[in-house]
């Protein structure tokens, strides 16, 4: 696809985007828009794929068959989301093999939340509730994002994630009605995941340099801090209904603002994790790399077989 520098094309692009229209794969788009989108969609796809691990860790040990089925189906959905998103990235000219290479070599990132370990089965519920909840806050606006294939993928993803979030919350509800030890597990898990969940919205707006351009392009529709506030306001009553508390002494309702005040996450920790030094970064990448490399011979065989078949079909034709 040839990139033509043309003021008219650029004007048309800007007009479409500003009018909340959709850019489709065949439309002209600025190089930087394309590059930003590829990076964002790839990171999102990688997050789905890496996100299979922390929850996948509990499939074999899920303590009831119903929960095992729900969890397995959820992790399977994440693989599916990865597939839709890689397909969306492909419409921008990105090659999946290349993106996978970037993931396992650490050149492309994924959501830092998946660099935390899952320590108890309550984490499965809390990830559904808080982590998927935060993801949905981030992603719902993307269903109206300017790039068509991405927006359509996000509609499907968001629908399934809402379902996962409800399942996670329902698991926690069940556990809170169970034994004392289960209630202890849920609270302990909430204590670990609350701050990392707040960090899923990224650094504060005043240190998020690309927000403005992404908003102009309608790739992003709200600032990090707006979304974070929304998530806190949404989560507090849910926590009350559940009977758990968040580990933030500054958290309280601010009548004046009509919103909750809350403490500042440890963004220095976020930066360390983003830079590769979280509790599970090495493990996650290593797992993906091993799975990929263990599968080399299978993919090669499938390609060789397809080539043989094509050759035979040709021979017959």
């Amino acid at each position, binding site marked *: 696809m040839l990139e033509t520098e043309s003021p008219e094309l650029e004007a048309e692009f800007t007009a479409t985007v500003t009018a909340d229209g959709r850019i489709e794969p065949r439309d002209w788009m600025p190089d930087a828009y394309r590059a930003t989108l590829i990076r964002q969609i790839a990171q999102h796809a990688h997050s789905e794929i890496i996100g*299979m691990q922390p929850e996948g860790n509990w499939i074999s040990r899920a303590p009831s068959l*119903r929960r095992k089925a729900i969890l397995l189906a959820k992790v399977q959905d994440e693989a599916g989301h990865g597939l839709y998103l890689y397909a969306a990235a492909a419409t921008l000219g990105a090659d999946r093999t290349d993106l996978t290479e970037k993931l396992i070599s650490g050149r492309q990132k994924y959501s830092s939340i998946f660099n935390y370990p899952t320590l108890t089965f309550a984490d499965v519920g809390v990830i559904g509730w808080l982590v998927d909840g935060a993801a949905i806050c981030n992603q719902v606006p993307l269903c109206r994002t300017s790039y068509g294939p991405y927006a359509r993928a996000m509609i499907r993803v968001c629908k399934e994630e809402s379902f996962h979030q409800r399942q996670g919350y329902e698991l926690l509800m069940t556990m809170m009605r169970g034994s004392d030890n289960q209630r202890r597990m849920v609270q302990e898990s909430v204590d670990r995941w609350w701050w990392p969940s707040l960090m899923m919205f990224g650094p504060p707006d005043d240190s998020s340099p690309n927000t403005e351009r992404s908003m102009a392009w309608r790739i992003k529709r709200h600032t990090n801090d707006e979304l974070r506030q929304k998530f806190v306001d949404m989560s507090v009553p849910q926590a009350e209904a559940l009977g758990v508390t968040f580990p933030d002494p500054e958290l309280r309702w601010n009548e004046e603002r009509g919103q909750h005040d809350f403490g500042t996450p440890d963004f220095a920790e976020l930066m360390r994790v983003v830079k590769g030094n979280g509790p599970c970064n090495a493990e996650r990448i290593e797992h993906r790399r091993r799975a990929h490399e263990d599968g080399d*011979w299978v993919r090669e*065989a499938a390609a060789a077989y397809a080539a043989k078949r094509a050759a035979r079909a040709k021979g017959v034709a």
Partner: protein
Amino acid sequence: RADLAAYALMLGDDALILSQRTAEWCSNGPELEEDVALANIALDLLGQARLLLTRAGEVEGAGRDEDRLAYFRDEIDFRNVRLVEQDNGDFAQTIARLLLFSSARLALFVRLSASADPVLAAVAAKGVKELAYHRDHAAQWTVRLGDGTEESHRRMQAGLDRVWPYLEELFTAHPVEQRLAAAGVAVDPGELRAEVDAVLDQVLTAATLTRPDVAPMATVSGRAGRDGVHSRPMGYLLAELQHIARSQPDAVW
């Protein structure tokens, strides 16, 4: 009735344990599409297991539900064949096992759809579609790997060689099966052999692979999986499967 409960347990345990093994592939497959496909198969098997264990518990009438049966039985009380409990090995070995199991189980469920027990008949009828997909999936990969590269051919043959000794157990009628088959409730698995053999031969031929010439895995004085006599991997599988449930016996999930 004890026979019916035991039979539902045999089939249910097969599905449960193979589901557990198959789910181990989740996030470890050779490509994302395969993660999805194997998770699907594991989910189908888990669904079959839940129906069958529930049925076993109902017929037994001792108040044991699917979870009680899955999580609170000892190894020697599990009734699955030894094929399903083996470690996954590489992708080829997993496919080889799936090919053997799904071919035999499909042939069984086709017949079992006409069981005198309406619940078994319904479970089997529902399972036929699922197992047909599993068998196709396994057959396609067997052909692709057998007729792919030199390495994949070698691995696929090795995978078949490794699991083949466990095939015999799928055709060996337990006294429970014999009695229930006589009553039109179960299927005598010995009857399936010719049909399954034909399917396997066809797949192996298309895959340019050789039917393994190996002795059936020995029993322990005549006892095997259906009698609770399992192989080394089973205990470790159960440790993982049951640990959390056993750790919190008073919990509600």
